[in-house]
């Protein structure tokens, strides 16, 4: 076919390849950025130099980190370990934007400064918060406008929060403790929040010293880290702190005492759940704090200890803790059955086992789901953990039941401070526990998996745990 000679296929488009296998970390951004900038300018100035496609293949000859301007990088550690640090400078008008996204700042700049909000209905949903779930899939806890209001009234009254207060905002706001007992509480009462976007013990201490807060809400690991750091650096905490509150996990008595000495302020332990918009129980700021206790119910909350049938138990008897009040969630989002099972006669069953003492103080012993049943006998993982922790070489301990055929065996996961054999640890347990409570297996670990609030993620210690972070093909 002759005509083909005249319609010879168009010459292939040419793209350019820039090859730099031994650049450095700044090149990762500078090379494509320069090509893009050059091409944008070229469109107006040097049309001939514009190529329709550029491919850059590059590596680095030294370790390096390229961070956005708002990432906290430890420069001392970087130079000690030969890591170059480069920053992506704050970009100008024509900033790079991932395709099919909106830039928040641009959206806000274009929007009006005025907005008239309609007062919400107390029953309206304000937030759905997903429980971190130490077992099972996260469930969406529905929290209404009224739930938050009741909680704010209860905590503001107990802690006497006012406009002069400056509260350390180190707990993440995506967690109920930070969201409710810091963000909401402070802003509803006209107080101010000191934002700490990235927690490190050094960062937190520096912020506290510089900003002189009046209140600090944190989790046990943070108080422990701070104490260690204070000792090492020999710096005092500012005298501005008038009160500290710890929650989410138990805080050892010695830490409470040491921190109270260091801060000159009371450190109160409390208790709460996502389902109760955070704190529902607290050691009273003006009364007696009891070691190991979560205190007494806050205003607006009622608490009791019930048996397996939901019947209230007398003081000192152990059972499941139940809560009632305006601060308690209406239930789980899209999960009617779970909601139904979580309530008994209008009381929310917390899933936490514990008891109330003669003075009305509550104590937590275990998570209900984690109780081990062996040969028909109930074993409290908390009790076994406590015995393990009494061994001077044991740092952390998590005890759980593992199916072995038809039976359940007790497995103890521990981290240690030094050399320790399983045999030694088992004989230590035998000295303090009835035989059937002694762990069948001791598993030594480097670290224990934990939630952001310092609770051990027991589900991750079980054999068939599926790593939710992985993305599978099917």
């Amino acid at each position: 076919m002759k005509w083909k000679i005249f319609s010879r296929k168009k010459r292939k488009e040419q793209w350019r390849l820039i090859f730099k296998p031994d650049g450095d970390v700044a090149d990762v951004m500078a090379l494509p950025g320069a090509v893009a900038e050059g091409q944008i300018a070229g469109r107006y100035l040097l049309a001939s130099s514009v190529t329709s496609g550029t491919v850059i293949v590059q590596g680095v000859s030294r370790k390096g980190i390229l961070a956005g301007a708002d990432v906290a990088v430890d420069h001392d550690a970087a130079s000690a370990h030969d890591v170059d640090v480069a920053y992506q400078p704050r970009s100008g008008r024509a900033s790079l934007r991932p395709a099919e996204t909106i830039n928040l700042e641009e959206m806000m700049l274009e929007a009006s400064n005025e907005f008239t909000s309609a007062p919400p209905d107390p029953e309206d949903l304000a937030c759905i918060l997903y429980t971190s779930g130490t077992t099972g899939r996260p469930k969406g806890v529905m929290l209404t406008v009224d739930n938050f209001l009741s909680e704010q009234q209860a905590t503001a009254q107990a802690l006497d929060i006012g406009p002069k207060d400056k509260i350390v905002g180190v707990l993440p706001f995506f967690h109920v403790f930070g969201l409710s007992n810091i963000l909401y509480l402070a802003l509803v009462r006209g107080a101010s929040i000191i934002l700490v976007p990235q927690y490190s013990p050094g960062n937190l201490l520096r912020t506290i010293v510089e900003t002189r807060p009046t209140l600090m809400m944190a989790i046990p690991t943070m108080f422990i880290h701070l104490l260690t750091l204070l000792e090492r650096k020999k710096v005092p905490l500012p005298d501005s702190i008038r009160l500290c509150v710890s929650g989410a996990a138990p805080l050892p008595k010695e830490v409470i005492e040491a921190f109270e000495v260091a801060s000159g302020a009371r450190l109160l332990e409390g208790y709460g759940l996502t389902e109760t918009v955070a704190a529902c129980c607290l050691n009273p700021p003006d009364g007696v704090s009891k070691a190991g206790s979560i205190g007494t119910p806050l205003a607006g909350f009622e608490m009791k200890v019930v048996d397996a049938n939901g019947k209230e138990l007398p003081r000192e008897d152990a059972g499941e803790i139940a809560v009632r009040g305006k601060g308690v969630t209406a239930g789980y989002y899209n999960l009617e059955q779970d909601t139904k099972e979580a309530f008994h006669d209008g009381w929310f069953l917390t899933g936490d086992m514990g008891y109330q003492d003669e003075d009305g103080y509550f104590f937590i012993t275990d998570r209900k789901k984690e109780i081990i049943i062996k040969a028909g006998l109930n074993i409290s993982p908390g009790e076994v953990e406590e015995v393990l922790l009494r061994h001077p070489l044991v740092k952390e301990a998590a005890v759980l039941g593992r199916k072995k055929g038809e039976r359940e065996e007790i497995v103890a996961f521990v981290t240690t401070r030094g050399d320790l054999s399983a045999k030694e640890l088992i004989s230590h347990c035998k000295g303090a526990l009835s035989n059937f409570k002694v762990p069948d297996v001791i598993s030594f670990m480097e670290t224990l998996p934990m939630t952001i609030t310092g609770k051990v993620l027991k589900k991750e210690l079980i054999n068939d745990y599926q790593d939710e972070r992985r993305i599978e093909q099917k």
Partner: protein
Amino acid sequence: MSAESSKNRLGLAQSIEKRAAALPDSVALHFEGEAIAYNELNRRANQVANGLQGLGVEKGDRVAIMLPNIPEFIYVLVGTLKLGAVAVPFNTLYKGGEILHILKDSGARCLVTLTNFFPVINEIRSELPDLEQVILTGERNLVFAHPESTAFIQLVLQGDHIKDIDGAYQKMGHILLKIIEDLGVKEAWYKHRGSIRVRGEKIATFVISEVEGMALINTVVFLGPLDTRDFLRVVWVPPEIRDKVVEPLTSVEQETGKRPLWDQVKETVAGAIEERFQVEIRDGSMVRDELFSYEKLRSLAYKAR
């Protein structure tokens, strides 16, 4: 509760409005040495409310928030509440499956998150039909470059090479998959808008960005194992959650037993792109304007803090 008393019980947004009107200059937030007053907080929250409303967010709609404790978290939360919409804040450490579950279950229409988290969201976006808008803030992007491990492949293309973003993700994903396969890795797979993975582990990843009618495709390929300890020494992460911060990774060397040489990487990349884009690739260098801007960007990168 009577209608009268419920009126007196203000929601968070209304409490802030009231304080902003009564004592506009009183401080609400302290952040990086600056004080943000109640009226400023209220003004920013108004902007968010108006912006979200412009995107079609209505009372009762869910707005997901995946942000650390920065002022934007509060602006977005309060703006959402002003609309009567429902805020769904969730853990910034969550990855793939966990985020998918929350966004799906809550039926969120919008998500506000850090630019840095975008690749994670992009990877699951096609499974989230309800998620209409992804709103990004901050320049918190983070790249860890390691001589033994990381190779960067970047494409700068005129806009007309990319007809639609969906198609571009499809095409680039398959080019990258071919590159990985040509480097000898077996059983790698690409899921739309995701990373290239072997089993559940990441071996390469890319993001498509736009700037003034051009497209930038940024790709990272792990040639050898990445020692994340170096990363963790520089950016502090609590030890208990370290395995949550760094995704499970693999590399060409781990899969094939050999780290490919640079010339092989270059040839493989050029070959795959030539074939799929039907173009000819020639070695080249930067022109004058580009060199000028390269020097500027490099010096800024080491100066900025």
